[in-house]
């Protein structure tokens, strides 16, 4: 079934107020930034309020939407003319965007609340909340936009927020560098997105979904593929997919709530959103672009998982896992309508359990005064019961423990991919196994075994303002998957937005891949327990085998970038500067110097001897006469 037609909203109801979703947090950010120190006292509260307000609006819109007949569920609200003849600012309210809105605003609000506690000691907490609000606004604009330009504004907006938040502790050089890296790498992706937009505009003379999507098929095959691949480049940048993955791990320099919200739950999934949103148009089932998407997805999910296995920094471990999970979503999104629902479902559940895990990790760090090295944890389950329980639920969810969220969504992905392309499917299964390993390793190293931290640390459970969000998130991590997948709830709901496969998938728990997955996960977990639970974990990192180092070094991704881009770039820069000063400017100054020099030399002919002057006159006269002769007799 093709996606439904995009209608322009007739007005009325919450939908016509949807812009509030964006404006509320934006206003929050503006007030907090312009208000300055004056708002320090209540700034964080305002931040939370705005985020919650956005959630309320989202919920109302959602309710109005499901009230409508499925064919009516794609409505665009035109706000104002942005660039005459090129683009307006308008919102597209449809099942896809609203699902994102709910996820963003709900998880976002929770993380806002959590941050009140987490950032309580930070003098710049107000600024932190301002940035968080800014992020929420931008992210909502991204998903709500009804055209690529508006989407791009949100797209870069979240990039900015991410830059600001990664670099929030800018006095740490590592943070500043990481922030810059994230932005620049994202810009590489944006380059693709921009060119994609140019191509779309040149092709269709418009950038609004409503006019592009229905006509996409009329464009030539090559053009469609080109657009698809360019969009994918953008997606890779935002979602830390190969080859633009390198920034995500460094991004963990930011405060943990940021990692939870931006670099796990929402922003990094924007790439998936982009692919799914343009899917019907530019990544149709069986298209080249789609194939590339799936390949990228698989590669990334494996890479992320492998990286995850070797990290001792708990956040980096989770970051690797995020890469890997998004890999799953990409993989699913790449195979067309059959996969969209699962991709989104996994995206949503992942939003919850990964946020849960990150916040849990944050809570642990909070307890261990910002120690991130898992080798210095151990045996924390007694001291941080709530954190432990919630974290453990998140853990079960992500490894796909039966009946928890991850189980349904990831399994759904694997199943659908299997039908599409067995090899990819089995690789996905392998990834699941590795997931089992590194997540178990993380839990074991953190919460079990003997304590390995030094005496200065006095682990303590976090305050309620931090634990409650954990609890709520963990609750969703348990049930959400089942709710979305069983009886294809999400699939049917999304159908008007992304279309749906000819025959609906049916969920059968005991399929071969499903069981294999479980088995592999169990094996992975077993190995982890055997390796880290039974035997002593050294506090200092051992050299490790070649493979371990390979994983630890992020598969040499940075080394590669350095060798391929940064070094040559630096040389090129030096060369260019030299060329500019010596080459171009050299010519200019040389010319001036030449004139001056010749003047210095020529003036010597003015010897001061009257007879030489007379000579010049005499010769001059002779030359003149000669010339006259020549010319005259010609």
């Amino acid at each position, binding site marked *: 079934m093709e996606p439904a037609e995009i209608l322009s909203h007739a007005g009325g109801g919450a939908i016509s107020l949807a812009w509030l979703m964006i404006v509320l947090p934006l206003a929050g950010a503006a007030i907090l930034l312009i208000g300055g120190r004056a708002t320090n006292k209540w700034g964080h509260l305002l931040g939370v309020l705005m985020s919650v307000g956005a959630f309320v609006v989202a919920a109302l819109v959602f309710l109005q939407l499901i009230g409508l007949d499925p064919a009516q569920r794609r409505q665009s609200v035109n706000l104002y003319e942005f660039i005459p003849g090129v683009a307006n600012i308008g919102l597209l309210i449809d099942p896809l965007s609203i699902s994102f809105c709910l996820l963003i605003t709900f998880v976002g609000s929770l993380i806002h609340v959590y941050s009140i506690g987490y950032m309580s000691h930070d003098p710049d907490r107000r600024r932190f909340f301002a940035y968080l609000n800014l992020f929420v606004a931008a992210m909502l604009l991204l998903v709500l936009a009804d055209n690529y330009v508006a989407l791009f504004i949100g797209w870069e907006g979240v990039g900015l927020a991410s830059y600001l938040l990664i670099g929030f502790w800018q006095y740490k050089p590592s943070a500043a560098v990481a922030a810059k890296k994230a932005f620049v790498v994202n810009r590489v992706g944006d380059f693709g997105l921009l060119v994609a937009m140019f191509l779309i505009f040149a092709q269709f003379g418009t950038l609004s979904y409503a006019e592009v999507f229905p006509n996409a098929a009329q464009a030539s095959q090559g053009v469609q593929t080109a657009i698809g691949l360019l969009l994918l480049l953008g997606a890779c940048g935002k979602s830390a997919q190969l080859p633009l993955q390198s920034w995500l791990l460094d991004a963990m320099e930011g405060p943990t709530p940021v990692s939870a919200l931006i670099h796990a739950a929402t922003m990094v999934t924007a790439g998936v959103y982009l692919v799914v949103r343009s899917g019907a148009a530019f990544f149709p089932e069986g298209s080249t672009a789609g194939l590339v998407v799936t390949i990228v997805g698989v590669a990334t999910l494996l890479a992320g998982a492998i990286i995850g296995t070797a990290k001792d920094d708990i956040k980096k471990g989770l970051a690797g896992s995020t890469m890997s999970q998004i890999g799953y979503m990409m993989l699913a999104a790449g195979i067309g309508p059959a996969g969209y629902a699962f991709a989104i479902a996994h995206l949503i559940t992942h939003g919850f359990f990964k946020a849960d895990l990150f916040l849990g990790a944050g809570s642990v760090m909070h307890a261990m005064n910002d120690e991130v090295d898992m080798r210095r944890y151990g045996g924390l389950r007694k001291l941080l019961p709530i954190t432990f329980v919630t974290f453990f639920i998140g853990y079960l969810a992500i490894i796909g423990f039966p009946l928890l969220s991850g189980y349904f969504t990831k399994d759904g992905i694997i199943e659908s991919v299997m039908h599409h392309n067995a090899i990819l499917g089995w690789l996905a299964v392998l990834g699941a196994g590795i997931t089992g390993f590194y997540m178990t390793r993380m839990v074991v190293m953190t919460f079990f075994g003997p304590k390995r931290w030094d005496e200065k640390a006095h682990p303590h459970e976090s305050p309620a303002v931090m634990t409650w969000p954990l609890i709520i998130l963990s609750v969703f991590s348990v049930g959400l998957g089942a709710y979305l997948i069983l009886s294809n709830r999400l699939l049917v709901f999304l159908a008007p937005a992304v279309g749906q496969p000819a025959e609906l998938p049916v969920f059968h728990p005991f399929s071969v891949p499903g069981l294999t997955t479980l088995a592999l996960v169990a094996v992975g977990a077993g190995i982890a327990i055997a390796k880290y639970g039974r035997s002593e974990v050294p506090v200092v990192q051992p050299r490790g085998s070649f493979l371990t180092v390979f994983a630890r070094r992020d598969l040499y991704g940075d080394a590669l970038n350095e060798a391929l881009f940064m070094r040559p770039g630096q040389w090129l820069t030096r060369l260019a500067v030299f060329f500019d000063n010596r080459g171009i400017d050299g010519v200019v100054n040389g010319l001036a110097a030449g004139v001056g020099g010749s003047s210095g030399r020529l*003036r010597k002919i*003015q*010897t*001061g*001897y*009257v*007879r030489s002057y*007379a*000579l010049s006159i*005499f010769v001059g006269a002779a030359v003149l006469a000669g010339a006259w002769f020549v010319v005259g007799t010609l």
Partner: protein
Amino acid sequence: MTTHYLVLSALLFAIGGIGVLVRRNAIVVFMCVELMLNACNLAFVTFARQNGNVDGQVIAFFVMIVAAAEVVIGLAIIVTIFRTRRSASVDDASLLKY
């Protein structure tokens, strides 16, 4: 048969000119200039003869007057600079240059 006179005047003019170039003594240089003027006079008179009108001869008189005036001025100047420098060599007066 006026050609010879013209050649002569040309020769005189050239001699005068070369004299200006080669002699150092201001007076001599100046006399060379006078020589050039007189070469002109010769040319004028000759041409007057050739063209059969008296203009040239009249002009010659004018030129003599002018030359005379020039002598007055010139000697005055040369004498002053001689008094100052105790030398009439034009090569000594080469402070102004470049």
